[in-house]
């Protein structure tokens, strides 16, 4: 079985052709770097995304937040919900943990801006 993907690792957006044997990735072609190969294997077995959203502090300021690492794609909405529920008070430094182990993914959500 062959699957066509577009790599999202960088703005090149390489078109990837992936040979599958059942749920196993046999080969990846069309990528211009190693990351495309990794992405295809990950995407077809356990797709991951970095989640970005905002949280409102008690002072009513909007703080941008991101998951420090990509989280499973099917947990995106759970992560957003968890981040939104976080209690944040100023000041905030970029990299401060806003929600530890967000939605039980093992990944921390951190502030993306110092306020």
């Amino acid at each position, binding site marked *: 079985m062959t699957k066509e*993907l*577009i*790599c*999202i*690792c*960088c*703005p090149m*957006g390489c*078109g990837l052709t992936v040979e599958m044997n059942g749920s196993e990735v046999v080969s990846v072609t069309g990528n*211009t770097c190693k990351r495309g190969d990794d992405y295809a294997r990950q995407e077809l077995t356990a797709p991951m*995304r*970095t*989640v*970005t*959203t*905002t949280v*409102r502090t008690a002072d*009513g300021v*909007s703080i*941008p*937040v*991101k998951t420090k690492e990509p989280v499973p*794609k099917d947990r*995106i*909405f759970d992560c*957003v919900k968890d981040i939104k529920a976080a209690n944040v008070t100023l000041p905030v430094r*970029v990299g401060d943990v806003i929600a530890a182990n967000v939605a039980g993914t093992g990944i921390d959500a951190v502030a*993306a*801006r*110092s306020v």
Partner: protein
Amino acid sequence: MREFDLAVIGGGPAGMAAAVAAKKKGLDNIIIFERDNVLGGILNQCIHNGFGLHTFKEELTGPEYAERYADMVRELGIPVETGTMVLNISPDRVVTILSSGRGVEDIYARSVVLAMGCRERPRGALGIAGYRPQGIYTAGTAQHLINIDGIMPGKECVILGSGDIGLIMARRMTLEGAHVAAVFELMPYSGGLNRNIVQCLDDFGIPLKLSHTVIDIKGKEKLEGVVVAEVKDGKPIPGTEEYYPCDTLLLSCGLIPENELTRSCGIAIDPLKNGAVVDDRLQTSIPGVFACGNVLHVHDLVDHVSAEAAKAGESAAAFVRGGSAPEGRVIKLIPKNGVKYTVPNSFTAGSLDDEPHIRFRVTGIYKNAAVVIKCGEKELFRRKMRVMIPSEMQDLAVKKDVLAAADADLEIMTEGDIS
């Protein structure tokens, strides 16, 4: 009158990178004028990730990328005047500024870097029939409302135009609990990057309908819905109309470099890119005035903006310190067949960088094509390109010798068929 070696107009990614580069080249008396109250420009509201892969070798969000440059500006001790609007730049580089603290003031700058960025094409410029109800926003306005002000513009959303901001906002609206019915694109191809179609639309099951546009807007005070139709040769096809009830219509229909100051200064504008005509030092038609970033031509990647702006900053520093014009013939670079525009518009034979960059966009989708530079009939440069699409700016680094070999104006063109 206050005097500066360099006045940078705009404190976004281009302005910050230009100022930092000029300072590192030894220019001391620099000022950045920014009309917002913070540095960072549009990056502050671009909370998604994907910035900085070239510049910092890691994937950052917009605010993080901005903060890194704002930190450099601060650490280098470059003065910034925020809340300051530049009203005019004269051809002899007297800059008129307005701020609540100082009122209207003229300052003199030995060099100027234009880094004002761009703005979104508004509804009024799109020619859509119908009422003008509340509920229609440019994608960037909605982005500001949600990400900076913490306000959701609506719950049921339709997006017109598949520019990157529109795609990003489709995901953002969805994450914030709204329903995005679809993204409609007039052209037969997307205006945004492939990766954004995958991770902003496909991930959330939002359809992208190419060759479609909004032909009517319903609702008098408040938006009630839009009528969408398929288009062929720019005209709606009768019988393909569909009604989408919605309370929010986001427009992501192109960005326009904000060149009011450039024009009123009398600087020559290249109509192909709606930005200043520049040479390889990014100097405009007025000596000592340089341009970079989205005010020069609209970029897809902030990394490219930073690199280009650093060049403008270095050129400004060289202009102030050396003062002398570069030597040698001026070689024009003329876009031909398949190339929409280029930056720069010309090179000066005597002062070429070791690897001058040529940035350009193509007019259609090219696969397994080539980009060729010719001088008359003579071919000076050829590179095979696996894929070139209009939504992705191309950045060619060309060996100095290639351009130095030119004895007349150069032409740059694509070779291969539009697919």
